[in-house]
């Protein structure tokens, strides 16, 4: 987690190949997401590690704040409604596992969150500025 944070702090991984862009370390655990606040726009590899103990997912959407529309249960974000803004949706990652996802992030404000029942509202979200 510390390594992921360090990588995230640098904005790019020294070991990352130029074609894959920077590696952005994301750490998830009950019930918190740790990620760099600023990164450079472009092709990046999102390396999401779930420290558990629960299963978590990671959804990245363009958003200026944490204010996202909720479903009728009042507990989970209405993903349909934010679909146009959704950059990527990484389904559930088992505790202890890591998953890499390559994507191109244009400059802007982004929100990273887990949308499993109660996790978003329990604190599992963080903001990211790409510039």
């Amino acid at each position, binding site marked *: 987690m510390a390594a992921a944070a360090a990588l995230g702090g640098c904005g790019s991984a020294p070991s990352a190949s130029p074609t894959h862009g920077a590696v952005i370390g994301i750490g998830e655990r009950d*019930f918190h997401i740790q990620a760099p606040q600023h990164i450079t726009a472009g092709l990046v590899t999102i390396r999401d590690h779930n420290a*558990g*103990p629960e299963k978590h997912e990671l959804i990245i959407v363009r958003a200026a704040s944490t204010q996202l529309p909720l479903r009728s249960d009042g507990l989970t974000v209405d993903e349909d409604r934010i679909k146009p803004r959704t950059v990527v949706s990484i389904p559930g990652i088992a505790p202890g596992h890591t998953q890499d996802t390559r994507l191109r992030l244009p400059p802007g404000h982004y929100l990273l969150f887990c949308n*499993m029942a109660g996790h978003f*509202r*329990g604190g599992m979200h963080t903001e990211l500025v790409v510039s």
Partner: protein
Amino acid sequence: MRRGQSRIRPLQSRGRRAVVAFIAIAAMLAAGEIALTVHVASRNAHRAPMLQVAARQRTLAERYTKALLLDRTGAAADPDVLGRTLIASAKALLDGGTAPEVAGDDDATKLPAAQGREIRAQLTQELRLANDLVATGQAWLAGDQVDTVRLTAGEHPDSTMPAERLRVLTALTSNVSLNAARSIGASTDANTASTIRTQIALGIVGLLLSVGLALALMVAGRRQVAHFRSLVVASQDLVLIFGAQGARYVSHSVEQLLGRGQRELGGWSFFECVHDEDREPLRNACLHADRRTIGFRLAAADGAWRHLEAHVTDLRDDRHVRGVVLNGRDITERVQLEQELTHQAFHDSLTGLANRGLLLDHLTQALARTRRSDHPLAVLLLDLDGFKQVNDSLGHAIGDDVLRAVARRFATVTRPSDTLARLGGDEFALLTEDIDELRAGALAARLLDCLTEPVEASGRTLRIGASVGIVVHGRGDHIDADDLLRRADVAMYAAKAAGRNRFEFFREEMGERVGELLSLEQDLRTGLERGEFTVHYQPEIDLATDAIVGAEALVRWTSPTRGSVSPGYFIPIAESSGLISPLGEFVLNEACRQVAAWREQCPLDPRFTMWVNVSGAQLSQGGVAELVQRTLETFALPAAMLGLEITESVIVEEGSAAERAQAELQILHDRGVRVAIDDFGTGFSALGQLRRFPVDVLKVDRSFITGVHDEPKDAAITAGLINLAHALGLLAIAEGVETYEQLASIRELGCDLAQGFLLARPMEPDRVRELLLSGTGLVI
């Protein structure tokens, strides 16, 4: 199979150990499989209530929140109970214990401690969230600020509103409980799947082991079959299996053994190769196994008979064989060796004829047959004449050649039913049955005739004769084989005595004569040992001067039982028995000793010669020259004082015996010893030989001297002999001069010396010494 016999166990040693290893591994796999199944079943049995309680937690969390809301609205609810149940259940799920009952739902459930790091982490989180939820609920019920409640599960609800905050915590607790239940279920499924995989793996391993074991058994079985096949194929022994159709199996070894193919001996053909005498017993053995071992003969492809010794094994009840097994070993060489040894034991190795043992055996059987019938039998004993001289003079190798040649000739005369044997030395015997005296005599004549032609041996031509003794035996007389042979021996002796090269039938009175001869021989031997022999001397006169110029040494034997025995009687016995050598040595020694004594005591004529008779047998045996030389040295005698008298026959005979005699005489003559031919004129004419022999004196035989004065022929012969002697430069001595007329006649004929009763009888040495001392002539 009997105890102690070796057995071939195909799965012994490595094979057996392999099977044991296979079985042990298979058993271990089965045991492991069962243990694993039991273990997994046990774990799954515990997981079921865990799963039930874990799933119930989600409901409990939601029911707790509802109860809080109801309680806030004043409705009857008991959130505390539900809260405690939620926490107690979470604890029981994590660390084991009893999950409390839920009214109207579940009974209290006993749970084991959670296993697995992931599950325990989830249940720990569930417990924290339950505590956070219940703590928040209690704060709300107590009217406290819920956002001041310290949360332990890492959650950060985004609302400070109690209801919202509780809603989020409930959702998290519910979600975590659901995930924990899923993990427990998944763990159970994983265990079950793992068990199934393990069992499948174990099953595959077991299957492979079973297949391996089967293959190993097949290989071992094939090896066993190959092993036995190679044993049978490579074996020198003949193996056959007989069934109702004859030989059903014939081993490959038959080709090497008999030179016949396996197919050639199949079925009943096998018995066609069996010797007639062995066929029925062998057939019974092969078809009925009526004996354990059997010997038989088989005809090889080249016609030779092979002797076999076989073991018969009855395996008709053995479902793998269903027949009688014959295991035969070739013992031909052993049989031949036995036959050879038997032949050697009963045959003479030199001639191949029967030996004495076999002759006696056949003779005993023939005597038994004769006693049962009227057919007489005859035994002919043949002793070769002159063979001893051949053997002594030409050597044993030539003697053996002669014996073999004679045996072959005898064999041409005999019938196959006769037994021709060599008893030893030059003695042969012939047993013939169903024969009378007339035909036995004719047979003996044929045997003698077959020796008429000279025998060729090592390039030499030798004349061999035989003396044959015949005994014919009928049924009346009870006699054993040894006695019969003894009688034939007596008759043979009689034939020899009667002039040799002839046959004589046995007559009872012959026994006495033979007994006498044997007795005389024994007495001679004893007499020599006891010193019963003496030497007398008959002087010889020089007819010109009347001087005593020599003496002939004449042996005399006075036996204590026989009295005075004539030399003419015992000399032949001494010659035939070999006693002539010690007797001759005695006479030579005594004569030399005597003349040496006279030489000192008396005035001897310078020409004085002591004459000693030497037989042809002595000369041909060799060693005479050395003996004479040694004796002369012993008594310090000049060689010229000794003369040796030999008979005319010695120089007449041809061959190496005569050559050896001549050589011996030549050596002595060269040293000065004088040589005289005794009884000259009575033997064969051998003037040529006379020239080659070293002779000094011819002694004219007394038979001519007897009539020299009144028989013109005797006078003419005597004159001729004297002239011959002179012509050859020899002296002539007249023997047996008994009258004055004879003395006058020989003087007239120019004879040099004389000897006879008229002049001097043979006399004791003292008398001779007196004559010598007196110096007087003997003749008037």
